[in-house]
C-alpha cells in the first residue's frame, strides 16, 4: 500500500536553503503520492563518511526505495550494491554516482549553468576586464563544477576577461563578505564578481555594498535577499537550478520505479538565468524559493 511506502532521501546537506528547497519539493511530491519520506544530510559537504553512515542507517530501516545525492561519486558504491541486492531502487539526485545502480539521476548540469553565468557576466561588463569569483567550497562537487564551469567558459569564449581571484568562503555570509572586501581592496578594477551559491552571493552583495562599489554581481540559487537585490538592481541576475523540481523528481521517480515504470538515465531538472526582467514570470517564480 502506498501509505506504507517509505523513501528516505540522503542528501548532501540540510542546513542550506538550497537543500531546504529540495526537501520542500520532495515533501510536496510525497504528499501527492501518499508516501512517507525523510530527508537528511551531513553538516558539511566534506563529510563523506558521515553520509555513508546515514545511508547505512537508512538502509537498515528497510525502505521501499531510496534517494541519494552522493557527496563522492565512488564512496557509496558498496552500499548501493547492497541496496541493489536487497532490491531497493535507488534514485540519485543533484549529482551522480559512478555506477549504473541508480535508476535515474535528477540533476542539473552545474558546469553548463555556471558557463551561462560567465556568458551573462561577459555581456554585462562589455566582454573585457577583471572578474573575481567567490565560491562556497573548493572540494565539493557543486563548488568545483560551478567554479570550473565559470572559469572554463571565460577562458574559452571570453579571452579578454581576466579572472583575478578565486576564493572560498564556506558559504558563510560573513566570511564571504570579508573575502569580497579584500578582493575589491586588492583589485580595485574588478568589474564583476560571481558568487557561486546563495551564501557566497549574499556575501558578495554585502561586501560590494560596504565598499560602496558599483560593479556587476551575479549570484547563484535564490532566497529572499537575492530576489530583493535583483529587483533593486544591486544584483544583475542569478542562475537558479530547480531545487524544488529536483526534490519532487526524486520522489516521483522512486514512486514510478516502485510501480515498475521505466526511467530515463538522466532527468534534467533544468537551470535558468533570472534577472529583473523575468523574475516575475510564472516559470521562473515557480523555481525560486525564499
Amino acid at each position: 500500500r502506498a501509505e506504507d511506502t517509505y523513501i528516505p532521501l540522503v542528501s548532501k546537506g540540510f542546513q542550506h536553503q538550497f537543500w531546504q528547497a529540495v526537501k520542500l519539493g520532495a515533501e510536496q511530491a510525497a504528499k501527492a503520492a501518499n508516501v512517507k519520506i525523510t530527508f537528511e544530510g551531513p553538516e558539511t559537504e566534506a563529510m563523506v563518511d558521515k553520509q555513508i553512515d546515514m545511508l547505512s542507517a537508512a538502509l537498515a530501516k528497510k525502505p521501499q526505495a531510496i534517494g541519494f545525492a552522493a557527496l563522492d561519486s565512488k564512496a557509496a558504491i558498496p552500499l548501493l550494491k547492497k541496496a541493489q541486492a536487497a532490491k531497493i531502487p535507488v534514485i540519485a539526485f543533484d549529482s551522480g554516482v559512478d555506477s549504473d545502480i541508480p535508476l535515474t539521476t535528477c540533476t542539473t548540469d552545474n558546469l553548463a549553468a555556471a558557463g551561462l553565468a560567465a556568458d551573462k557576466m561577459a555581456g554585462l561588463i562589455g566582454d573585457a576586464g577583471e572578474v573575481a569569483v567567490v565560491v562556497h567550497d573548493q572540494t565539493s562537487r557543486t563548488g568545483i563544477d560551478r567554479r570550473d564551469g565559470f572559469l572554463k567558459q571565460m577562458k574559452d569564449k571570453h579571452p579578454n576577461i581576466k579572472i583575478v581571484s578565486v576564493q572560498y568562503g564556506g558559504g558563510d555570509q560573513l566570511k564571504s563578505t570579508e573575502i569580497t572586501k579584500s578582493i575589491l581592496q586588492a583589485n580595485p578594477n574588478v568589474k564583476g564578481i560571481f558568487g557561486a551559491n546563495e551564501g557566497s552571493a549574499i556575501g558578495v552583495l554585502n561586501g560590494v555594498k560596504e565598499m560602496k562599489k558599483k560593479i556587476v554581481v551575479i549570484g547563484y540559487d535564490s532566497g529572499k535577499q537575492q530576489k530583493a537585490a535583483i529587483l533593486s538592481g544591486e544584483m544583475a541576475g542569478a542562475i537558479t537550478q530547480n531545487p524544488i523540481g529536483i526534490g519532487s523528481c526524486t520522489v516521483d521517480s522512486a514512486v514510478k520505479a516502485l510501480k515498475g515504470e521505466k526511467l530515463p538515465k538522466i532527468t534534467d531538472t533544468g537551470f535558468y538565468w533570472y534577472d529583473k526582467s523575468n523574475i516575475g514570470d510564472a516559470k521562473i517564480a515557480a523555481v525560486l524559493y525564499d
Partner: protein
Amino acid sequence: MSDPALVKDDKDGMTTGDAVAALRRRLLGPAALQKLLAFASLVLLMIYFSFASPAFMQTDNMINILQATAVNGVLAIASTFVIITAGIDLSVGTLMTFCAVMAGVFLTYWELPMWTGIVAAIATGALSGVVSGTVITKMKVPPFIATLGMMLVLKGLALVVSGSKPIYFTNTENFSMISQDSLLGAIVPDLPIPNAALILIVMAVFASIVLNRTALGRYTFAIGSNEEAVRLSGVNVDRWKIIIYGLGGAICGVAGLLIASRINSAQPALGQGYELDAIAAVVIGGTSLSGGTGTILGTIIGAFIMSVLTNGLRILSVAQEWQFVVTGIIIILAVYADMLRRKRA
C-alpha cells in the same frame, strides 16, 4: 623590600613632581615597554603586509579590518572571562547564532520594536550562559563537555526556532544600522569608523572595567587561580561561576546582534567554528588557558592579529590552502612570542 617607587604610590600626599615622575614611569618604564611588546606581533604583521601590498595600508582597508574584527573580538571578550576562570566555552559561536535568531523572532516573526530584539538577544545569551554555568557547577560536568553539549543544543535550537531558514529583518529597516552605519563618521566625516567597531570598543572598555574594578572580576581571577582556596574562603564559588558564564553569554548576545545586523539576517546554520577563532584570539592575547591571568586589551590585540592576518593573506591573494598553513603557523608563533616576552619580563 619592595620597589620603593611602587610603595610611594601608596602615600596619599603626592607632590606634582612625584605625579609627573609616576606618569613617566608608567609610560616609559619596563612595564609599559612590556605591554608595548604585546603589540609587536601585530605591528610586525602590519608592516609586512604594508610592504607586500600597497592595497593593505589604506584607510578603507583599515576600516575593513576594524569591521571584520568586531564579531570575533566580541566573542573573544566573552571567552576571556570564562578562560580566566580556567574554564572554556565552546558554545560561543552557536550561541551567537541562536541569539541572532531570537532577535529575528522578536523583530520579524512577532513584529515587535527594535529594542525588544536587542534585549531578547542579550537575555537569551545570558540565560544560556547561566544554563552552562549551572551544568558546570551543580552537575560538576567539566566546562569543555558542558559547553560542547550546549554548542550542539543551541545549534539544534537555532534551526528549530528559525524553521531552518534565515530570518530577514524586514520589519525593522534600520536594524542593519547597528553594525553598518557610522555614528562617528556622521560627526567626523574623515573617520567613517563603522558602529560595529565602536561597539567592540565599548564592549572592551565595559569588560575591562568589570574585570579589573568589580567584585565579579576579582572572583573571575581568584577562581581561575585557585578555586578551592576561594571556596575555603567562604565565597559562593558556584554562584559566581554561573554569573560569569551568564555574563559571557550576554556578550555573545551582543555578538549575535552584530553579525545579524552585518549580514542583515539571522542565519541559523552559521556559527560553529567561531569558538576556536575566539579562543585563539584570547590565547594569542596572553590569557592563559590554565586560568588566573588575562587582559581584555590582550584579547583585542589577539583578535586584531587574527583579522589582520586573514585580511592580509586575502589581499595578497595567497591560495586558500596556503592561507590555512600560514595562519596555523602564525598562531603558534604569536603565542610563542608572547611566552618569550613574559619569560623575559
